[in-house]
């Protein structure tokens, strides 16, 4: 299905650039050929349908090749954030039972020892673009694969990240629905600077662009000047991002006012966009940042493609094609127009979750809708406004951080007796990680940050560590998270 989707675009637009990275341009025909050649390489390693494969690659043609080769063979792809470290690699390799990792030379050199310490049988396959066998079969056997294709991990609202299992058919259908909703076509040039290893970049950038025959311009990380240069020089038409990116671009004094005549759609997801960022970006670059809404479980659910006038700048818009959004009150009844309740998504492509569901999860899934954990309201025109989230997770620039994961790393240090990790806001309204630690005398902030380094991704390492004699607790002895959280700025 996904391989056929790529093959269809390659047949229709063989010479159209499919993926343009800083290093190279890959046409649709070249992309398909490289996928075929890499699939042969995977088969030579005895990989077959149903085998789980971890993919640790930055945005670029190599990521697309790895994922579509997995799709062709019916293997299960598990894309991981390239900034993940020892603890995360151990968790995801063990949880997915993958014994194969596809990655680049730099990441392989850095993590080879760690990966083999986790699982000595694990194969590391480096660089999907460099294949000795340059010819592979072009058959589309993947159309017959109905098994699991993709494992993604969603933060949910509490506890361990949930494993979300996606099928190829659902992802292909989602890509088609989303491309139609955005009117994406071969004339579009989409900027992929949000990580494609995450469901937002995977679905909205890679899959939607390939489905539509658009050209994807990939950047490995967010760099202000590279983003601006790409927007201008490549005449980007669609720019998906996260609020932090738009805030930085709008507020950077070294980036002057500019017009982007080709840029028809800029949209934000991953966290709520604040009004200051919306206004500053529009004043400086003369294009509104629209809001998109979705989840790893359901894929894209809503986007505001209409007016951003008045209060509508804050809306995530109407539901995308073939998706229905309802607001349900806590008594289980549908909310009235404008009334706040649980945001529930109804989509035929909603994923399964694996792991032990909580009682609340089981109750919530009973009516066939997916309870997002967000609170929101619908206006009379069907525009969704997300008003809050019932989650302990910390949203660092669009990356969700589980406080208990960071607490457990801190508590592995022999000098730490207790810790509490919370999110707090910086001057730009961005959340970051703060830790409160009870420890033996002499331990410094520097010691504990150095301890975390290499064990978890940098964005999870507490920016501020505060030392206290004891953690704040309620009369019943429960740790009082709210007592150490600062009120949001502004």
């Amino acid at each position, binding site marked *: 299905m996904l391989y056929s989707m790529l093959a269809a675009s390659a047949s229709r637009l063989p010479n159209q650039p499919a993926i343009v990275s800083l290093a190279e341009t890959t046409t649709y025909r070249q992309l398909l050929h490289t996928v075929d050649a890499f699939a042969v390489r995977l088969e030579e390693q005895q990989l077959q349908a149903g085998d789980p494969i971890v993919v640790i690659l930055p945005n670029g043609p190599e990521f697309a090749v790895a994922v579509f080769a997995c799709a062709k063979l019916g293997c299960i792809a598990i894309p991981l954030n390239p900034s993940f470290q020892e603890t995360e690699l151990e968790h995801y390799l063990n949880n997915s039972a993958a014994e194969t990792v596809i990655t680049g030379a730099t990441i392989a050199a850095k993590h080879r020892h760690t990966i083999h310490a986790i699982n000595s049988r694990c194969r590391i396959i480096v660089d999907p673009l460099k294949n000795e066998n340059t010819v592979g079969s072009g058959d589309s056997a993947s159309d017959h694969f109905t098994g699991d294709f993709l494992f993604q991990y969603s933060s949910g609202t509490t506890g361990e990240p949930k494993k979300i299992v996606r099928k190829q058919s659902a992802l292909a259908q989602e890509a088609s629905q989303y491309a139609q909703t955005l009117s994406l076509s071969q004339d579009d040039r989409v900027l992929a600077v949000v990580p494609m290893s995450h469901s937002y970049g995977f679905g909205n950038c890679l899959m939607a662009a390939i489905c539509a025959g658009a050209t994807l311009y990939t950047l490995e990380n967010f760099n202000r000047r590279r983003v601006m240069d790409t927007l201008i020089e490549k005449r980007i038409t669609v720019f998906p991002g996260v609020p932090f990116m738009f805030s930085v671009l709008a507020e*950077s004094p070294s980036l002057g006012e500019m017009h982007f005549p080709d840029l028809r759609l800029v949209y934000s997801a991953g966290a709520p966009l604040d009004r200051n960022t919306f206004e500053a970006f529009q004043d400086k670059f003369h294009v509104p940042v629209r809001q998109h809404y979705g989840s790893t479980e359901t894929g894209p659910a809503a986007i505001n493609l209409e007016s951003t006038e008045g209060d509508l700048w804050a809306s995530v818009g109407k539901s995308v094609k073939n998706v229905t959004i309802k607001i349900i009150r806590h008594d289980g009844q549908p909310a009235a127009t404008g009334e706040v309740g649980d945001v529930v998504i109804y989509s035929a492509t909603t994923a399964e979750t694996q792991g032990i569901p909580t009682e609340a999860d089981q109750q919530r899934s009973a009516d066939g809708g997916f309870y997002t954990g967000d609170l929101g309201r619908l206006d009379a025109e069907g525009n969704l406004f997300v008003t809050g989230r019932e989650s302990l997770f910390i949203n660092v620039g669009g990356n969700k951080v589980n406080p208990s994961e960071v607490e457990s790393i801190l508590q592995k240090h022999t000098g730490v007796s207790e810790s509490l990790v919370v999110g707090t806001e910086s001057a*730009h309204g961005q959340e970051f990680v703060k830790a409160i630690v009870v420890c033996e005398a002499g331990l410094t902030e520097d010691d504990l940050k150095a301890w975390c380094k290499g064990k978890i991704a940098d964005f999870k390492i507490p920016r501020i560590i505060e030392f206290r004699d004891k953690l704040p607790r309620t009369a019943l002895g429960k740790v009082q998270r709210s007592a150490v959280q600062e009120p949001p700025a502004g």
Partner: protein
Amino acid sequence: MQDFQNIESTVAELIRVQTKIDVTPQQYEQDLHLDSLAILEVTIGLERTYGIEVDEAELDVLQIFRSVRSIANFITSTRADQSR
């Protein structure tokens, strides 16, 4: 022009405002452990305060943004270069 000590204290204040990390004068040489988001927040502060342009693609940002002292050194050399 600010002397080096003043630049260091301005940088420390700017880091406090932008990232909420408190740095005392005794810690000016210590590693700040800034992640990429915090580096961008400090960069915006530096551009605003000193009118300099920071191109993070061309620079060894991890080295420059390592400590208050290394940032102050960077400001001194950049201002000298950009005023030529």
